[in-house]
């Protein structure tokens, strides 16, 4: 049984979008998975804000049915390459999103 967003997805990824933004995509396997994850009642900016400890007002979400993709962008919390930056390409920041639990679990 699927328990997390990762279980419904072909790929969950994150990356820099320029030096000052992070962007993430969830590629869902099928329409049912997309319908669930794209539902704002399941996943919205408030959830992302809680997961990443950032301000919800700074988050942009795009729901793209024709690709079965949910895309999330927000300003990089830590300046790229600075002393406290532990993920220079922001390539591992999808993990909290991928581990987000599905309803009823």
């Amino acid at each position, binding site marked *: 049984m699927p328990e997390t967003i990762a279980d419904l997805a072909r790929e969950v990824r994150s*990356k*820099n*979008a*320029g*030096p*000052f*933004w992070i*962007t993430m*995509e969830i*590629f869902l396997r099928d329409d049912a998975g997309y319908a669930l994850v794209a539902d704002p009642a399941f996943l919205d900016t408030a959830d992302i804000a809680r*997961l*990443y*400890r950032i301000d919800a007002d*700074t988050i*942009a979400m*795009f729901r*793209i049915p*024709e*690709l079965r*993709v949910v*895309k999330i*962008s927000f*300003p990089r919390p830590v*300046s*790229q*390459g*600075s*002393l*406290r930056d*532990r*993920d*220079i*390409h922001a390539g*591992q*920041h999808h*993990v*909290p999103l991928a*581990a987000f639990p599905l309803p009823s679990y």
Partner: protein
Amino acid sequence: MNEVRVLTPVGMLGGGFPPETITRGLALGADVIAVDGGSTDSGPYYLGSGTAKTAAAAVARDLRLLLRAAATAGIPLIVGSCGTSGTDSGVDWVAGITRDILAEEGLDLRVATIYSEQQATALKDYLDRDRVRPLPPAGALDPETLESCTHIVGMMGHEPIVAALRAGAQVVLAGRATDTAIAAAVPLMAGLPAGPVWHAAKIVECGGQCTTNPRAGGVLATIDATGFTIEPLDPDAACTPESVAAHMLYETVNPYTMREPAGTIEVSQARYRALDDRRVRVEGSRFETAAQHTIKLEGARITGYETMSFTAIRDPHILGQITVWAALLRRMITEWVGGTLGLGPEDYACDIRLYGYDAVLEEIDPATGPPREVGVMLLVNAPDQATATAVAKVANPLMLHLPTPDMDYLPSLAFATSPAEVERGAAYEFVLQHAVDVDSPTELFRIHLPEAEHA
């Protein structure tokens, strides 16, 4: 021209591609070869120091194939963001490699260089005239920030590249340019509509990234009056409507619109249709010309000098209370550095990272549970290298022998190297996220085109 074929062999010059990519692209009638030479993706060091991420030998290997192809087919070669960050030193670096190859191969091509580095004093004039705008999430720019940068570049659009080609250049080596401008230049010169041209340029910018096998090699985009067609150059790879549309997601904040110096790419109405099992047709892309032409700036400055030290822990007793141990390490370093070097928190900064425990994600990490082993990285940043190294050396006995509070003996931990400390030199940060309003698309850029030797 009714249509223009743009060949992009690879996402970044020096990344490598099979020679067949070029043979196939030329056989399909490529009109121009466009390849990106850089990116900010690997961090501020490259712009800050004006050095390249790629190895000279890797750039030379790719350039040799591309220069031969350009000479054989009589088509232009355009390289953007030379030397990773597009500084003047990066352009000169790629130009030097190009010169050597042309001489070795006995090729005679006119090479234009376009410089995009900016001086803080000149930019302050724009600031004084209220012609510099912050881009999200940045705030207003102050002149001190400009002065603090070791290098500033402006991102050119297609216009300086077009100017160089019109002046007779066969090879254009551009400083910092938008990823799209290098592919857009020739089709725009041919009078093709901006919507399909810019969208195609965005799709090809990462080479095979828009195909079903991103490692297979480059792509060819054929742009005409009503849209564009995209196909991979590896016969075993395919473009599908999904793989092409999905490329608009890659490293973009917004998948529907992208700002260029001259306007905005708008693809929300674009339609992607399979022509066969490996070629995709795209129509309906638009480009909205902006009322004000803008040039985006990138700048980096030195934050200090860093020294790194790395030890490792395997003892389960310490691993069982690793956060307690790390907090003690932090407190002891602060005390010992204060006592030994007389330095306070304002004189240096430390980052202690527990690799194997939570180094990458820290408090947002969803996982819990004891680690099997932990690598402890100490990263020290100070105003000069000697201070950073002195702090790391004072911390050395702690990183070797620090026990947890409940131990009555001194453990010896596993340093990874001898000496444990590595001097990293200057550390940098990106500081500019601003755009300059310009009257002319070329005013911030300098085009050099030597007279042809055998004209």
